[in-house]
Each structure stands twice: as structure tokens, then as C-alpha cells.
């Protein structure tokens, strides 16, 4: 029932259009990630869903009910802020109970919900602490507990992990994901970090300059990016997107470089590139050994690309070698950056 439907949403600030005709659905109990570079309008969309920002045009519906103009408190949403928004003068217990006290929930009910939420996020020992005496991860847990006690069906999160160090981030990411599934929350999660999107999302909404670039499950975005932007935004290191006219000669490359207009671009993921006997001759510029894999940064004439080799590659900067990839791993983008699927019979 409490799925979210967003239709033709627009946010206009004077002459500047921060959100431009955005539509997507969040099915009940699923987690949708709004992904995109900083300033693309993710927070603005989230705040319009929450009711913290006026909608310029379009509609937001939760559970089939149009709530575009409804008061924020009546929408049935809770929100976790990037800064956690904990009240600095209240201890953990009072912070968690704040919403229940505003809504005049009965004392006994408050206590059971507090105990439940605290147990879910492991805060039982810290209820009397002040926020200033908590670590980043613990503050994050308080913010989560506040969301849990509110028992709102829809939960919005705005870059909740960006203030944590890398290790804690991975830990909290799993915890949020676990809670979302356990409590069957309908969640919209904002991030600029593609790893978070890839690992948590049921569906990713990729945004650029206030517009939707692509919508789909993480695997679909990764395997069939609709635009060159989507191709480069997901994946680490990003996809090689190479202008066709920079391939000086195609002889000997076989199906690696298909026939296409000079202003098109050819995309290959770094992990699909192999060192081989034949193929594109390149010079190695840098070798980044990461343990499980090695990332080679190479150039071939004016063309620069990256290759990800499993394990430890026995090459050094300055080495000359040949790289190849399978025709099936090629993504073609036209002059406007749109995906073009090639007619396979033509390339082979």
C-alpha cells in the first residue's frame, strides 16, 4: 500500500531548475536509491517527498494518496539527515522519544517502542548519554532508532553515511539494509556513492542536472547503461569510453573496434580487457596493485584507457603490450551519448 509514486516533479528556484520533470515509482517495501553527482537535485527531490520543500510542479503520492500539498507531519514519512539532526541538549533516550512525545503516545507504549528500537540498533547501554559523547556510528544509530520508533511506513535517507569512515560506512550500510528488509520499509536513499547504490538498491534512479538519466536495478544499469554518463558513473574504475576517431588504425583489431561514425564513442569496462598476444598495442603509464586485482593505466597514441587484471600483473610502467576485448563486451554511444546497440551480424 504505501508505495511512492512521483510524477513529473519539478523544482524551480527563480531561473534555475534544480529538478526537471522527474517521474519514478518506489514499490512498497523496496529500496530505491537516488544516485548522482553532487548538485544534481537528489536532496531536493527527497525534501519534496518529505514535504520540507514546496513542489513547483508535478505530484507526489504515497499509498495512492496525493500528498503533494500535505503537511510534512501528516505524510507518514520519517527522515534521516546527513548530519543526523540529533538534539544536542537531549540524551539518547529523549532524542529517540522526541517524536513520540510530540505525538502524545502513551507512556507505556513509548517505553516498549524505545526498548525495541534500541535493541534493534544496539543502543541499550547508551540511552543516558548525550549526543556529544557518542561516536559517529553511534549517532547514526540514534538517528536510525528515531526512524524506527516513529514506525512510519516510508523512510527517507539523505546521504546518511557520508560522515563516517570507510570501515564504519560498510558496516552501517549493511545494517541499514538489514533493517529496511526486516521492517519492510519503503525507503528512498540518496547517495553520490555508486558502491552504496550497487550494494543496497532494489532500483537505482540515476540523476544528472535535475533530470533522470536512467532507472533500473543495479545490474541493468551496470550491464546496459543507456548513456555514456551512466556508463561512467557506475563501476570502479569507470568504463573506458573512447572516441571512435582516436583509434588510429583498425587493422588487426578484428571485431574489437566495429564500424561506426567517427563522432560515436566505444565503451569497454576495464575488467573486460585482457592482456593478449594480439590486439591494441599500448604503452603502460601506471600500475596500481590492489591485492585481488591490478589496475593498469595505459595509452595508445592519443587514446587513454584503464584495464583491470585479476591478481598481480607482472608489468611495469613503460612496458609495451597488447590488449584485447570481446566484441560482446562493447557498448556503443552515439554523438549525443545515447546507447546504440549494433547489429551483431554486421560486426562479425
Amino acid at each position, binding site marked *: 500500500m504505501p508505495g511512492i509514486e512521483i510524477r513529473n516533479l519539478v523544482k524551480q528556484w527563480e531561473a534555475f531548475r534544480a529538478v526537471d520533470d522527474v517521474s519514478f515509482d518506489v514499490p512498497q517495501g523496496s529500496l530505491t536509491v537516488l544516485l548522482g553527482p553532487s548538485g544534481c537535485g537528489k536532496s531536493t527531490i527527497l525534501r519534496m517527498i518529505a514535504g520540507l520543500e514546496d513542489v513547483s510542479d508535478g505530484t507526489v503520492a504515497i499509498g495512492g494518496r496525493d500528498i503533494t500539498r500535505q503537511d510534512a507531519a501528516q505524510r507518514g514519512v520519517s527522515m534521516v*539527515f546527513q548530519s543526523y*539532526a540529533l538534539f*544536542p541538549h537531549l540524551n539518547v533516550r529523549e532524542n529517540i522519544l522526541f517524536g513520540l512525545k510530540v505525538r502524545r503516545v502513551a507512556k507505556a507504549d513509548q517505553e516498549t517502542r524505545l526498548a525495541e528500537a534500541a535493541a534493534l540498533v544496539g543502543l541499550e547501554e547508551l540511552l543516558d548519554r548525550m549526543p556529544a559523547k557518542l561516536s559517529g556510528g553511534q549517532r547514526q544509530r540514534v538517528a536510525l532508532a528515531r526512524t524506527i520508533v516513529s514506525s512510519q511506513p516510508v523512510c527517507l535517507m539523505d546521504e546518511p553515511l557520508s560522515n563516517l569512515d570507510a570501515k564504519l560506512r560498510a558496516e552501517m550500510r549493511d545494517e541499514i539494509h538489514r533493517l529496511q528488509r526486516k521492517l519492510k520499509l519503503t525507503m528512498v536513499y540518496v547517495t553520490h556513492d555508486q558502491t552504496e547504490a550497487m550494494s543496497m538498491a532494489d532500483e537505482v534512479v540515476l540523476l544528472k542536472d535535475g533530470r533522470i538519466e536512467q532507472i533500473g536495478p543495479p545490474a541493468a544499469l551496470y550491464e546496459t547503461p543507456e548513456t555514456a554518463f551512466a556508463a561512467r558513473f557506475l563501476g570502479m574504475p569507470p568504463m573506458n569510453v573512447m572516441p571512435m576517431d582516436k583509434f588510429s588504425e583498425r587493422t588487426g583489431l578484428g571485431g574489437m573496434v566495429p564500424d561506426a561514425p567517427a563522432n560515436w564513442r566505444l565503451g569497454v569496462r576495464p575488467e573486460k580487457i585482457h592482456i593478449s598476444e594480439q590486439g591494441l598495442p599500448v604503452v603502460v603509464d601506471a600500475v596500481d596493485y590492489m591485492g585481488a586485482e591490478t589496475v593498469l593505466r595505459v595509452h595508445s597514441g592519443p587514446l587513454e584507457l584503464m584495464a583491470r587484471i585479476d591478481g598481480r600483473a607482472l608489468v611495469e610502467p613503460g612496458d609495451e603490450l597488447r590488449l584485447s576485448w570481446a566484441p560482446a563486451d562493447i557498448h556503443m554511444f552515439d554523438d549525443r551519448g545515447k546507447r546504440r546497440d549494433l547489429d551483431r551480424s554486421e560486426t562479425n
Partner: protein
Amino acid sequence: MTVSRDLMRHVHGWLLLTPAAILLIAFTHYPMVATLIDSFYSKGSAIRPSRFVGLGNYDSMMADPIFWKVLVNNMWFALGTIPVSIALAISMAMLVNQTLPGRSFLRMAYFTPTILPMIAVANIWLFFYSPYIGLIDQIAGWFGLPGHNWLGDPDTVLPAIIVMTIWKEAGFFMIFYLAALQHIPPELREAARLEGATRWYFFRRVLFPLLMPTTLFVLINAVLNSFKLVDHLFVLTKGGPDNASNLLLYYIFESAFSYFDTNYAATLTVVLLALLAVMALAQFFVLDRRIHYR
């Protein structure tokens, strides 16, 4: 070796402190002690030199009806000015902290009375309060109300001075509240709003407690000011009529420079200092324990 180096460090330290210490002792601590000593001596004259009378001055002070009158006046003056100017300061600060058109103009306007010297303020208000020709009486005249000698009536003179002082002080305190409000993250309001907290609830449970350190600071200043600010009395009332607007510090001035009883003035000064010290300490210790500092 180390002993002499340690010694040199201390000598250097004291040398650096000495100029400031001399000034402080000469102009702050010595006068305080001298005042205390003076208060134990009788008023001297050409034929009768001043002599030690112990607590004699304090006895006559306790029997002095004017002393009690100015003390009570001062209490009403403090009670009348402080809560209202603090409430006004918070309201004005919250108003000009919002995004609204003409906000910087409004901030300036609220702050203007603070820049004016107290004497200038008193002159402006002298015009407001003048019977029949003053602003207040002229406006009252439009509504057919009779004129009133605001500063000449013992019943209205103290309230009139209280109103003027609020006008002068609220803008000053507003600046501190504005600075404090700007350090409160806007997400707190949004988080409360999502939970359905009304503006009043948010103010009572979040904003006001977070402003408490500022309130303590403002409160101490306001209390000190209510005893220190008497400039306006020179222009407006000279403490009259019949001491109805006389305040402790002005009475000290009168004793010393109108009645030339410096020893009695010293006695009153000691009482004033003791009062101020007790109140500052009380506020600090009582309130401090209930304040959350970030």
C-alpha cells in the same frame, strides 16, 4: 642548571604580568579597598575631622528611608526591564533570522537604539514624554485622551523609565540571540517538523534550551546594567519627583557630589558591589548547572 632556568621562566612570567597587574591594582583593586575603608569613617569637615566610626555609617544607612526607597525602585526597575527585554530580544532575533524581505534593514533598525548614547536616548524620550507637546500626548490627543505629565507623576515616572530602557537594551541583546540562532542547524527544525512539532513546542523544547547559554550571559549583563545604567536620570528626572525614579547608583552620586558625604557614598558603594557580586554568583551557579553547553 634546571633550577635557575625554571627560576628565569618565573621571573620572565612575572615581568610580563607586571604592567597589567600594576594598572589593575592601582585603578581597580586599590579603589575598592579604599572605598571599603572609607565606609568605616565619618564625614569630615573643616572643624571636625573624619574619624573611625566602625559600622556607624551602615547603621544610619539602615535607618535611611531614601536608601530603602532607591533599593526597592532598583528592584522594580530590574524586574521591569530584564524579562521584557529578553523576551523582546528573542522574538526580534527569531524574526530577523528568517528569510524575509528587508531582513537586513530590520536588523539595522532593531540595533539602532543600541548605538545611541544613553544621554541621546534620554533626550529622544524626553520629547516623547513631554506633557501636552510630546509625541505620546499628541497621539493620545487624537483619540481624545487627556494629557499627562509622565515624568512628573510619581506613579508613572518609574514605568516610563523602564519602557525607555527596554527600548534601548532589547536591540543589544538581540544581537547575541541572533548570533546564537545562526549556530543552530536548520535540520533540527526540520526533524521536529516531520514529527509534527508545532513552532511553540519546538521553541519550548529545543530552541529555548539551546539558547540558555546566551540567556545566562544576557541575564548577567542585564542585571549589572540595571544597577549601572543611570545616565538617563541626569537628563530626565534627577531621581525625582520625590525620589520616585531614584536608583542606587544615582543616589550614590547624589550623596557624594550633591551632599558631599563621600563616606556615606562609600558605604552605599560597598553595598552595591556586594549586591552585584552576590547576584552574579547566584545566577552563575544556579543556572549553570541547568544549562547545556555544546
